[in-house]
């Protein structure tokens, strides 16, 4: 490292001991080599037998669902009960145990029940799916859905809306999973998470190979209701980084076009509804993903009964 680089580090406010250590590391060639991209995954696999095998804490979510049950039923029970249900759902959400900092945040979020239930209202009135989502494995790691409590919570919110939609005879959310180009880039945890998603989903799910995904090869897209669009592009090191990068806007014409586009992509994808009961182990999910990537006939193409916007 040249002195000019030392000066640059100084100019950036690094303390002298950090600068000198970085300079020594550079001189010893420690920046010449880099770890493999999959080193984290391989390390976790290597150490898995030493990690405590506690079940993932699902109790919280079960508790949440129980608390939300009356509000869901009330909302679904009558087309005139929306306001009452929103109030009840708001109360139910407030009753959830949560950390103090989150509670403070919640106080400012009175809009949440209204916004989220507006999606269900849209589904009931328009007879369309409450939300459509492109879940891109190249953008969000599938395994995050299993361990990240925020993503699991988002799935719970989807479940609430899907329940309302289904009780009103409306199709649930549509999820188009964009696969990675290479089966070997998935980890066992990824397959386990995909298996969990497919096996327990209340949404309708399709899988599409990377090279067939067109404009959705590099992005996650969520269309909520009539006009809300959320987009995420790039690769991220963690769920937190990913959520910080989500771009959100309201535009009904873009939302409508995206619904059409996602629906068209779904027609080239493989529907998984009939396979749910057969995905029990991570190996099943691996076989499924492998079959879709290789376009093997073991899985049937999306059937006409699963048209993306069917009412």
């Amino acid at each position, binding site marked *: 490292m040249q002195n000019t680089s030392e000066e640059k580090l100084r100019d950036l406010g690094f303390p002298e001991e950090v600068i000198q250590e970085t300079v020594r590391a550079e001189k010893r060639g420690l920046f010449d080599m880099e770890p493999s991209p999959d080193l984290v995954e391989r*390390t976790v696999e290597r150490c898995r037998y030493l990690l405590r095998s506690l079940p993932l804490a699902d109790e919280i979510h079960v508790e949440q669902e129980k608390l939300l049950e009356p509000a869901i039923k009330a909302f679904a029970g009558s087309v005139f009960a929306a306001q009452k249900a929103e109030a009840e759902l708001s109360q139910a959400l407030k009753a959830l145990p949560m950390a103090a900092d989150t509670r403070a945040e919640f106080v400012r979020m009175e809009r949440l029940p209204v916004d989220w239930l507006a999606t269900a209202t849209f589904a009931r009135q328009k007879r369309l799916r409450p939300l459509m989502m492109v879940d891109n494995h190249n953008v969000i790691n599938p395994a995050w859905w299993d361990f990240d*409590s925020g993503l699991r919570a988002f799935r719970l919110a989807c479940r609430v809306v899907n329940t309302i939609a289904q009780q009103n005879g409306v199709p649930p959310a549509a999820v188009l999973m964009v696969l990675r180009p290479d089966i070997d880039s998935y980890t066992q945890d990824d397959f386990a998470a995909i298996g969990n998603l497919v096996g327990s989903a209340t949404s309708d799910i399709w899988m599409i190979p990377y090279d067939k995904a067109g404009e959705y090869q590099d992005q996650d897209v969520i269309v909520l209701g009539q006009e809300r669009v959320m987009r995420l592009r790039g690769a991220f090191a963690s769920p937190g980084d990913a*959520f910080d990068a989500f771009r959100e806007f309201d535009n009904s014409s873009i939302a409508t076009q995206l619904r059409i586009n996602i629906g068209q992509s779904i027609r080239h994808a493989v529907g998984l509804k009939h396979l749910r009961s057969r995905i029990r182990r991570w190996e099943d999910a691996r076989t499924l993903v492998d079959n879709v990537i290789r376009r093997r006939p073991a899985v049937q193409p999306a059937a006409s009964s699963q048209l993306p916007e069917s009412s």
Partner: protein
Amino acid sequence: MPLFQTIYEMFKRKTSLDRLPFEELAERYESEPVAAFEEFVRRMKLLVFQAALDFVRRAHPPASDAEVEEMVLKVFEDFTPEFASGEPSMVLVRFAAAIRRVLDDDAFEAIATRYYRQLPLYYVKDDQQRRFLSALYQDGVGPTPAEDMAQRFQVTDDEARRIIRDGNRSLQDVIESDFTEDELREMTEDRIRRRH
């Protein structure tokens, strides 16, 4: 706050793992062992890789990728049973001991300052500054940190420089005000000191 983040933040009830200070990360092992361990590996892999590279070059030159990565795996494997056993606040000291056991003292010395500097940085309150600093130290700082971060976070070089400068000031404030001398001495083997 946008709706999606609202839903995310509201329902998750727990701070995202990548934002947790090390001692809280060790505590989260109880409920999310794989995820907490994975986050720990993600934060430490580059510095451990540099220590392993230094060690293998001295012990069995020349070092191949495979040899170096095998030593990295051995370090984490040696440490795993200790991740959540013992005081959460001492997790970095325990991991440093594993690095010395599997590699040697000199290998750890090659990374020691940057390694322990990660301890206080997760207390920096500004999200953007903390994200930049954590990414910087996870990358081992490197000779061109501003340019690297500008590319990574899609900001201009000038913007990256400003955020890093502000972040380094905030980090020093954290060191001065959020820890006592004794805590720093104990938790960082006296590698991080207050200036005042």
